């Protein structure tokens, strides 16, 4: 008897070819895979949770700085990216559906659209990060955040002089604390971006496997699991979008 798991997975005479040797039946295997992925997603929630906690603590400590720094982000890019990611989530769900009903052509179409959306999301993130670079908003020695910058959106406000004084009284180091917002911004969007890239890798792999005709109505677990992962990436963005872009817009 081989101890190679890979050798055991698919080749048991007279057995379901999709049943690994250590499971009793397909129901048990499917439930184990699904539960496994959900447990993994819960570790992802705690993983991002640490960063969300850091963001929240610094937001509580430096509300003025976070409000100012956040208002220098571009809401329109944020909205576009949200829409792109939501659409990709929809097409992913449709891809899973296509796999379940056994339509290989639709599966490939929907997976490709999802991949395109994911790519678009990363391109837009790249544009945003480049803008930050040009505005000297990358944390580090070159970081420069100026309350008197005439091109900044908040300085266009009618009562800006008054608000500026109020902000400086509340937090005299607001310009330095604004850097903390960008540290958190890059950590959160960076980690999220890494997850998008991993998701793109998984979707590409699924496309290749679908092209090899590996999936059918009886075997589509990998597509379902990839879908679950991709939806989680979407859910995290659903929280990131208002927290990063929309605080203190009023």
């Amino acid at each position: 008897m081989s101890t190679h798991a890979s050798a055991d997975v698919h080749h048991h005479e007279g057995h379901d070819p999709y049943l690994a040797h250590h499971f009793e039946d397909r129901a048990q295997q499917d439930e184990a895979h699904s539960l496994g992925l959900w447990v993994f997603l819960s570790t992802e929630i705690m993983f991002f949770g640490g960063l969300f906690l850091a963001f929240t603590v610094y937001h509580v400590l430096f509300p003025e700085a976070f409000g100012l720094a956040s208002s220098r982000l571009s809401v329109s890019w944020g909205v576009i990216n949200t829409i792109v990611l939501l659409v990709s989530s929809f097409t992913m769900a449709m891809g899973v559906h296509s796999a379940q009903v056994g339509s290989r052509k639709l599966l490939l179409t929907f997976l490709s659209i999802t991949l395109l959306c994911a790519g678009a999301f990363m391109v837009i993130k790249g544009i945003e990060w480049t803008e930050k670079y040009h505005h000297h908003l990358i944390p580090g020695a070159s970081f420069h955040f100026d309350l008197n910058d005439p091109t900044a959106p908040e300085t266009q406000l009618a009562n800006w002089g008054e608000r500026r004084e109020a902000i400086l009284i509340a937090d005299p180091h607001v310009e330095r604390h604004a850097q903390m917002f960008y540290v958190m911004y890059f950590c959160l969007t960076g980690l999220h971006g890494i997850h998008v890239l991993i998701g793109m890798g998984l979707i590409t792999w699924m496309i290749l496997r679908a092209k090899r005709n590996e999936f059918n109505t009886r075997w589509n677990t990998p597509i379902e699991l990839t879908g679950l992962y991709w939806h989680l990436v979407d859910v995290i963005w659903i929280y990131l979008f208002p927290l990063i872009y929309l605080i203190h817009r009023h």
Partner: protein
Amino acid sequence: MSDQASSMRHTEDKIDSTHFAHHIISPKVYLTVIVVLMVLTALTVWVAYQDYSHAWSLANLAIALGLATVKATIVCLWFMHVRYSGRLIQIVIAASLLFFMLMLFGTLMDVWTRHNVTSADYGSPEPTYEQRRDVHLPIGDDKHSH
């Protein structure tokens, strides 16, 4: 394994059943869901520009997070099929959210009641970046000079 034994495995506790692979949701439902998500996104942006801070200073944040939670729940329930999954998976999600909240509020319990953190309270400002650089306090380049 006998048939009887096999049925025992699947009936002994309902909490373990996930019914994962067996439910197919109609594309119409997915279409409805994505439309609702788009509407909620528009609502989130619109609400963010309204000023409710005269009523409660955290109102805008609370509304934004509330709407995000509604959206995330919709994604979970339909796109991620949680509505059709067993209780076990719902417990897994609830547990991770519970422990995240625990971490968040346990830490905030300290941050909210710790009054000596910002330098403004002490009256003595923290050293600026330039001051730290001038007196060679560790800010960067000299960290790895061994």
